Structure formats: C-alpha cells, structure tokens
C-alpha cells in the first residue's frame, strides 16, 4: 500500500463520495498519516489483501456492498480480523450504530464530520494500536538484543510447521546455538560484560545471516531469536535440504569463534550447535526445539565448538539421563550410595600413606553407576551439596575408625571436592567442623580439587584454599597436567600434593623416554615448591620402577589396590596383595 516510512500509521478510507474523501484527507493531514482511499467495498478488500493498514475508516452507505457488509467480510478474514475499524455514518439511527458494533467496529463517527472529533477519534484508535504494538513487542522481543524471544520463535516455528502441512515439499531447519563459555564470562567478568557479549554475538549472527546467507539474503526466510541466557535459535525457512542447514551451521561456528573485544577484555570461545530439519515429521514447535536442544548438548559432549544433527538415538540418552537424575534424588542418603576406598602407597616401603574415598552408587536395577556419570548430574541438580556433606562425613568417620583399630600408618583420608563446595563461602568452616566432630586433626584430611574447577573462579578459589590451608587441611591438585595452565598456575595455589594424571603415568610403558622426562620435570617442580607427588593410575611394575627412578615416591592405582568397601580386614588385604605381587623395587 505504501513506500513510506514503516512507522507512519497506514489508514485506509473507504468512501464513494469525493467530497468526503477530500474533507477527511484535509482534516487528517496534521497527523501525517499514510492515507489511502478506496471508492467502494470491493476495491477496499482488494487493497486490504495486498497490505494490512493500522486503521480503516469505513463509510456506511456506498453503492454496491454497504459498509456493514464490508465490515463483516473484514472480520471474517483471519489476517484482518483485528484491524481497527471506525465506522463513518450519516445515519442517526440507533439500529445502524448497534449493528456496526455488533459486526466488530471499534468506534463510529457521525457525518457531518467535525475536524476536532475526527482527529480525536482517529488518534485515540491509533494510539491504542501503538500501545498494543508495544505490548506485543515487549512480550515477543528480547529486551537485551532486540531479537525475537522464545514465544515469538515458537509462533514462527508453528507457522512454518503449518506451511509444511499444507505443502509437503516445503522444508526448513532449526539451529540451536549455545555459547560454550558464557557462564564462565558472566561469573568471572560480571553480568555487564556478559550482556555486552550477548549483544555482540547477536549482532554477528544478525549480520552473517542477513548478508551472506544465500538461502535468506533478504532476511525474509530466516528468523534469529534469543530464547534465553546464551541460547540462540535460527530458523532457516525454505531450504533445499539438510546439507544446506549444516553449511549454515558450519559457517556460524566460524563466525562465533572469532575473538570478541568487549571493553578491555578479549574473550575467546566456541559455540555448539544442534541442527534439526522439518522433514523428520515434526508436528509441534516444542518437539523441534527440544530435539535441536538435545543435538546441541550432544555437540557439547563431543567436545564443543562443533555442530551435531539430531538423531533419535540421542533422545534415548536424554531419557536415560533423566532416569538417573530421578533415581539419584532417591538414592542420596540411602545405602545405595556408599564409599569405596583406594590406598595411596609409599612406593618405597609399601606402607599405606593415605586413602582416597570414592563415591559409588549401586543402582537397584542398573547396577553399578560410575561416578563420572552421576557426579556431573549431581552437580547440575545441586544434589552434590547433600551428597558432598555425606561423603565428607563418612570418610572422616571411617578414618577415625581405622585409627582407633590401630592402623596408624595412615596419614590422611583424601576426599574429592565438588564445584558447589568450592563456591560455598562457608565450606572451610564446615570442613573443620566435620573433622573435629570425628576427633581428627585437620592434617588428617586431604581435599582434592581439579585445575578446571579452580580456574572457573581463580581468585575466589585461592581465597578458599588459603583458608583451608590455614586451618591445617591438606590440599591436593587432582588430575594434574590435564588442564591448559597447570604449570603456570601451580605456584599461585597452596597445594601440599599434586596428583599426576593417569594419562601421563600410562604412557610410561609405551613412550617411555618422553614421558619419563615429563614426569621427572613435574616431580622436580613439585619438590621445589615444597609439594608431594602422587602418581595416579599405576598399573604395572615397570611404571613403579620408572616412578622411583624419577623420585616419585607415592602411587595409587588398580595394581596397588582397587577401590573397595571398608571392612576390618581391608588394610591387611591391601598390604598382603602388595607383598604377594612383590612389586616394590626398593
């Protein structure tokens, strides 16, 4: 209907009398409207089909269809049913006025027209429309980025699915994007930086999808939305096939991987993308979003920074994960979850130097569930909080029992710390309380943390570790060598022990020279910083021999002692096993 500024209200006047057309145009001129004129109902309906106005001024008495008949047809058209209509009539009949409202007019104005009244009524309806438009935008647009939000994406997705129902050759795809390190940015650099990053991400996506996507060069076929947090959804409408969607996903990965300059911070991260295509027979928007989300998580599981196309088998994995989460809620606090203990031996003389407590879950129907499966779920669901307390308490109780029964060579019990515990400002006090309750010294408890946990919030972690260390608790860096900054950050943290990751120790068999030198360097570094070294994952005599030659005096692994439930004979069993195997080289 118009090439004018899109924010200019569009008004369609339907009247057969040129005198009235001229009059209304003159009266409304101060409002700066985009006014179009139809001389009869048929012409009006034809114009309405081409472009929807913000307001219709509809004359009552016209040749051909009357205003009331035209009004009825407007209200019956799905795309026009909510366009406001002001009925213009010379009739003073109450019947005509009632009928115009019954058929859906929003207001009426009587001829002869008076300028102030016409302007007031038109302005009132248009302002109401603008207010409704603002409410619509507030409900459907993301305030931070201006992109469509989840609600609008779901509506758009539903419309695309309806299009597929009507035309089975029509195809579209959904890309579900998640920024891999957003939480870390938000936690470490603050929400303001996080917000700026989100705006930058949305801008990159917007520009890329608009300017270089052959599928949607004019932007009409692509809907980009932010559906929450750092999750963005791209709907690629009318695509040829799945490969086209995957090509867009691959391109977006590259765009998002470029470093971001946010104020003085340079932020680097990857994104993970899940892809689904409409040809999989979807009928509901939620199902499609759910599967795209599942595929995105699978991309994260495969190492992040990649895209994965949804496969129904992935859904089964999600169902299993939900089952584990549900069952874990019931298991915490019952004997399904118990502790297994693994000795840390002196490789020199075979004495049990310390014992690591490890959580085990005997599921009633699924059997033994590994900690690397249920601990991450416990962390996500915050079940780790009660679970962590139970583990710490039981481990201290067990050490106390061993010491009371004469196993006084054990210097400490070692317990793994969760992310949630590391973030708790009260953690050091809790730990000391538990240790004291069981009559232990703080030096008899060792807490193990991993580098990745510390590096999420290094400053807060240093504060907590210093507090624990000051209280006398032993601290061990677990899985040393697997992070990217192990060596550079070691001096910043008050560790007593570093535990050399099994991935290094296992290579002592096959790639001996290189890894012997590496472990030797780690051991020297640890000693220079006043720390002990424990080799994890010791599985052969040969490894023990090499470890001793590089002065690594402590070891832990299946060969030395498997994790086992505590009982009165466990200590003897460990010592006996070691002696029988005669593995010590000293």
């Amino acid at each position, binding site marked *: 209907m118009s090439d004018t500024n899109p924010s200019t209200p569009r008004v369609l006047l339907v009247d057969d009398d040129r005198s009235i057309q*001229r009059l209304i145009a003159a009266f409304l001129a101060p409002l700066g409207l985009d006014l179009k004129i139809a001389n009869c109902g048929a012409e009006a309906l034809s114009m309405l089909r081409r472009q929807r106005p913000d307001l219709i001024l509809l004359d009552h*008495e016209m040749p051909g269809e009357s205003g009331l008949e035209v009004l009825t047809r407007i209200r019956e058209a799905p795309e026009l049913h909510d366009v406001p209509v002001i009925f213009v009539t010379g009739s003073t009949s109450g019947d005509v006025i009632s009928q115009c409202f019954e058929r859906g007019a929003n207001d009426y104005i009587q001829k002869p027209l008076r300028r102030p009244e016409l302007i007031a009524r038109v302005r009132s309806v248009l302002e109401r429309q603008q207010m409704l438009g603002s409410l619509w935008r507030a409900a459907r647009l993301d305030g931070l980025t201006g992109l469509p939000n989840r609600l609008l994406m779901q509506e758009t997705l539903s419309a695309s699915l309806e299009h597929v129902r009507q035309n089975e050759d029509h195809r579209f795809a959904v890309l579900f994007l998640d920024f891999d390190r957003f939480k870390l940015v938000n936690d470490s650099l603050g929400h303001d930086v996080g917000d700026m990053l989100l705006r930058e991400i949305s801008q990159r996506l917007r520009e890329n999808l608009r300017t270089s996507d052959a599928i949607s060069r004019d932007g009409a076929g692509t809907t980009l939305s932010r559906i929450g947090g750092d999750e963005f959804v791209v709907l690629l409408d009318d695509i040829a096939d799945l490969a086209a969607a995957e090509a867009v996903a691959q391109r977006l990965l590259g765009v998002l991987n470029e470093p971001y300059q946010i104020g003085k911070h340079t932020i680097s991260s990857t994104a993970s993308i899940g892809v689904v295509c409409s040809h999989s027979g979807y009928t509901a928007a939620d199902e499609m979003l759910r599967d795209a989300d599942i595929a995105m998580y699978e991309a994260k599981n495969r190492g992040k920074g990649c895209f994965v196309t949804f496969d129904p088998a992935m859904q089964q994995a999600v169902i299993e994960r939900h089952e584990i989460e549900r069952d874990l809620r019931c298991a915490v606090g019952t004997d399904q979850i118990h502790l297994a203990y693994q000795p840390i031996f002196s490789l020199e003389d075979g004495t049990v130097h310390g014992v690591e407590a490890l959580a085990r879950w005997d599921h009633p129907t699924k059997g033994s569930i590994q900690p690397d499966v249920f601990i991450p779920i416990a962390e996500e669901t915050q079940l780790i909080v009660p679970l962590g307390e139970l583990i710490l308490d039981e481990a201290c109780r067990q050490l106390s029992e061993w010491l009371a029964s004469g196993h006084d060579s054990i210097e400490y019990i070692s317990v793994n710390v969760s992310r949630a515990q590391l973030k708790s400002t009260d953690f050091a006090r809790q730990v000391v309380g538990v240790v004291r309750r069981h009559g232990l010294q703080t030096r008899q408890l060792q807490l193990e943390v991993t580098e990745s946990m510390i590096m999420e919030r290094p400053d807060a972690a240093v504060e907590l570790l210093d507090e624990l260390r000051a209280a006398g608790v032993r601290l061990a860096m677990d899985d040393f060598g697997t992070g990217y900054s192990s060596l550079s950050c070691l001096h910043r943290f008050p560790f007593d022990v570093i535990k050399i990751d099994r991935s290094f120790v296992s290579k002592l068999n096959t790639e001996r020279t290189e890894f012997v030198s590496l472990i030797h360097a780690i051991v020297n570094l640890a000693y220079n910083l006043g720390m002990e070294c424990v080799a994890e994952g010791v599985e052969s005599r040969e490894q023990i021999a090499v470890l001793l030659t590089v002065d690594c005096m402590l070891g832990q692994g299946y060969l030395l002692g498997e994790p086992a439930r505590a009982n009165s004979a466990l200590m003897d069993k460990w010592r006996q096993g070691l002696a029988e195997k005669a593995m010590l080289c000293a």
Partner: protein
Amino acid sequence: MRSELADDEDMRELIVEFVTGLPARTATMRNLASTNQVEALRAIAHQLKGAGGGYGYPLISQTAASLEHAILAQAPESVLLERLAALIGCCETAVTGLAPDPGEAAH
C-alpha cells in the same frame, strides 16, 4: 451564505472545490426529480447531508437531511419538491457566498 470555515486557510481551497461542484449536483437533483428517480435523488441528498456541515455549511446538511427523511418516509410529492427547493436554495446561496466580498474587491 459563507462557509463557517471560510477563514480557515487550510480549508479555503477545499471549500471552493466543494461549492464549485454544487451547481452540477443541483442540476442533477432537478433532473432526477423531474424524471421521478427518487432513490437516486435520496442518495445525493444523503451525500450532501454528510458533506455540507463538514465544509462549514450546516444548513446544507440540515435541508439535505430533511429531503432524505421525506423520501424515506414516502412523503407526498409536494413535500418532496418543497424540501428539494429548500436544499437547492441553500446550495445556490453557498455558490453566491463564494463570490469575492465587495469590500475585499475594492481593495
């Protein structure tokens, strides 16, 4: 008869256009009345009823409404002719009123 809006700069041109079109309408009405095309006559009366007041001629709207009402009420021909004459008279005085004011002409 001058338009009530005659002093409105924005309306002046429109009023001239409206009034200039009145003789054609009155001629049509006379013709329709003489050929007894009552419904077409009513339609014009209806238009003048709606437009007259808007251009600052409430008397045109009133006399047009009176004629339309008589036609809808199927009043006797004499009444219709009387009211038609009143409407045409109004329209003609509006045309006369459009002529330049003698005072202004002197200037």
